């Protein structure tokens, strides 16, 4: 049964298209009283507008080849010459237009997904074999610049200008090494291990972590539907995704605000589902809304691309949301974002509902079952690598500790000098760039605060550190941190 809607002018037609009704095909005349059909066609297919797109059959008078070419170029699926109109040709045009339209739509979606996953694969490859090669090349640069330095210093007089240039090369190489580490940190290639879970329970488990991550100035509101269905996802990746989006929300609300986390069951109709690249059906929706800066249309378009970031260089790798996107797609779901500049953003994730019962998450989550005592002491964490420092903060704060951060020895010393409250512990990396390394900073801080407890961290084997004497007296943790190990050592040291 065909339902016909008529319009006599372009504006009338556009008004209908902008309305709520579902239009399956548009027959568009080239010659309209108020505008020409091509301009209407352009508007229908312009991604900027909120229209369709819809399958379009262009109607034209005899002999207008250029119109036909333009029509197809600007997106029409087919054309009909008015003098040739008959029930058959109309029917054929209608069917063909819809078929071509659906094929194209699926094709461009597939293409978009393919490009995206190629980029993600590129990221994955970067963090796999290529990171290894990069590290080799960096080591070569390190070694030769160090040699160059040694040779130049031997000259009499020493070649000062050359030495300065060598220092520049060394700094750049170090920056390269940092970048590689960051990428590897954020692009962990873990295979997805989906489980049937209750999304509300997962959110409840990370609620404390979220509150700590977002800080005191961001209020978290939970609007979780009690009857929400189970979903089939990797719980670790889900948590990772939520934390990622929460951190983005926090960064958009630097003066504070509200983050609302909502879950509910939804039924997605054809169009809604298609917009998300999904089939119609039952889904569980997870939405995170913030009251932050919001995004422009341009930013919104790129938001899920790997390496796209609005943050300044050095802060953020631009990989967070692309990983969220990847995770959602691989879980059979879809993601959408609504945002207006200065009106906040809402990220909505849709996961297919599962009919299976959720496994009790506590059965699977070994780490959270470990009864490690926390505390509420104040710990000064000193670490030059931002990501590692952030991790340490998150691990410690989750157990209740109060964390003060410093990125180098001098900063730590300044904090020790100016901080009014008691600092119970100094947890510092041993080797850090700058004037004061961890050991030197620790020695000076101990003078200022004799009661302060010390724990050291290092990425190297203990024996390689100069001034081993000082280090030997205190606990030493190896990087990368094992959360349990870190917490146990800190707790034991505080108690000693």
């Amino acid at each position: 049964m065909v339902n016909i809607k008529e319009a006599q002018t372009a504006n009338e037609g556009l008004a209908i298209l902008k309305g709520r009704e579902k239009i399956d095909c548009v027959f568009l005349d080239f010659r309209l009283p108020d505008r020409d059909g091509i301009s209407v066609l352009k508007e229908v297919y312009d991604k900027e507008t909120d229209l369709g797109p819809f399958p379009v059959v262009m109607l034209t008078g005899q002999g207008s080849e250029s119109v036909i070419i333009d029509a197809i170029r600007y997106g029409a699926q087919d054309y009909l010459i008015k003098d040739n109109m008959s029930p058959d040709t109309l029917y054929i045009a209608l069917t063909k237009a819809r078929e071509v339209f659906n094929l194209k739509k699926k094709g461009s979606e597939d293409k978009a997904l393919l490009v995206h996953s190629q980029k993600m694969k590129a990221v994955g490859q970067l963090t796999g074999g290529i990171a290894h090669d990069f590290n080799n090349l960096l080591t070569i640069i390190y070694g030769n610049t160090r040699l160059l330095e040694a040779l130049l210093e031997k000259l009499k007089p020493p070649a000062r200008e050359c030495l300065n240039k060598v220092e520049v090369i060394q700094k750049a190489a170090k920056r390269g090494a940092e970048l590689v580490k960051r990428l590897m940190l954020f692009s962990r290639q873990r295979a997805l291990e989906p489980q049937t879970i209750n999304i509300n329970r997962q959110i409840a488990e990370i609620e404390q972590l979220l509150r700590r991550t977002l800080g005191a100035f961001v209020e978290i509101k939970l609007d979780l539907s009690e009857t929400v269905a189970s979903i089939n996802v990797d719980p670790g990746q889900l948590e990772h995704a939520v934390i990622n989006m929460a951190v983005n929300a926090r960064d958009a609300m630097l003066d504070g605000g509200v983050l609302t986390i909502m879950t509910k069951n939804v039924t997605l109709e054809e169009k809604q589902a298609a917009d998300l690249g999904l089939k119609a059906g039952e889904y569980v929706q997870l939405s995170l809304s913030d009251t932050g800066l919001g995004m422009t249309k341009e930013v919104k378009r790129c938001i899920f691309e790997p390496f796209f970031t609005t943050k300044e260089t050095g802060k953020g790798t631009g990989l967070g949301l692309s990983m969220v996107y990847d995770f959602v797609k691989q879980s059979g779901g879809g993601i959408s974002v609504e945002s207006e500049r200065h009106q906040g953003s809402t990220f909505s994730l849709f996961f297919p509902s599962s009919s299976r019962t959720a496994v009790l998450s506590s059965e699977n989550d070994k780490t959270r079952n470990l009864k490690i005592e926390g505390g509420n002491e104040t710990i000064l964490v000193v670490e030059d690598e931002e990501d590692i420092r952030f991790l340490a903060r998150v691990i410690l704060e989750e157990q209740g500790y109060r964390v003060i951060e410093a990125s180098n020895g001098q900063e730590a010393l300044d904090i020790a000098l100016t901080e009014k409250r008691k600092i119970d512990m100094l947890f510092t990396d041993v080797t850090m760039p700058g004037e004061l390394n961890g050991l030197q900073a620790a020695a000076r801080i101990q003078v200022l605060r004799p009661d302060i407890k010390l724990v050291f961290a290092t990425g190297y084997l203990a024996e390689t550190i100069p001034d081993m004497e000082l280090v030997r007296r205190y606990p030493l943790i190896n990087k990368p941190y094992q959360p349990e190990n870190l917490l146990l050592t800190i707790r034991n040291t505080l108690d000693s």
Partner: protein
Amino acid sequence: MGSAQRKILVVDDNQLLRETICDFLNFSGYEAYQAKDGSQAIAILNREKPSLVITDIFMPEKEGISTIIDIQKYYTGTKIIAMSGGGLFNRSDILRSAKNLGVDATLEKPFDFDDLIAQVKIILEPSNAEE
């Protein structure tokens, strides 16, 4: 210190890197030899009997690990430093395997070359560690 204590074998499939490390070791007063894979390494071990082997772990598969096992079996007493391709979280499990095998030290690329020499000193001249 006898001359044998100064012989070091560097095993890595990357030629430039091998040469860089050997250059630096020679510059620092040691006698460095190169091998690009496990079998070359064994040949040099037989011929020169170095007291320390610095070896990459991947090369390109897990050849580094099997080289380490061979050295421990057939050239006991030879010290070993294992190098890894770097990356904090993904490679740490490989480094951990090396540590579990009982190598004398591990280094993550890219490493500071002063650290490398400090390690070498400590391993080969424990009584002369301070410089």
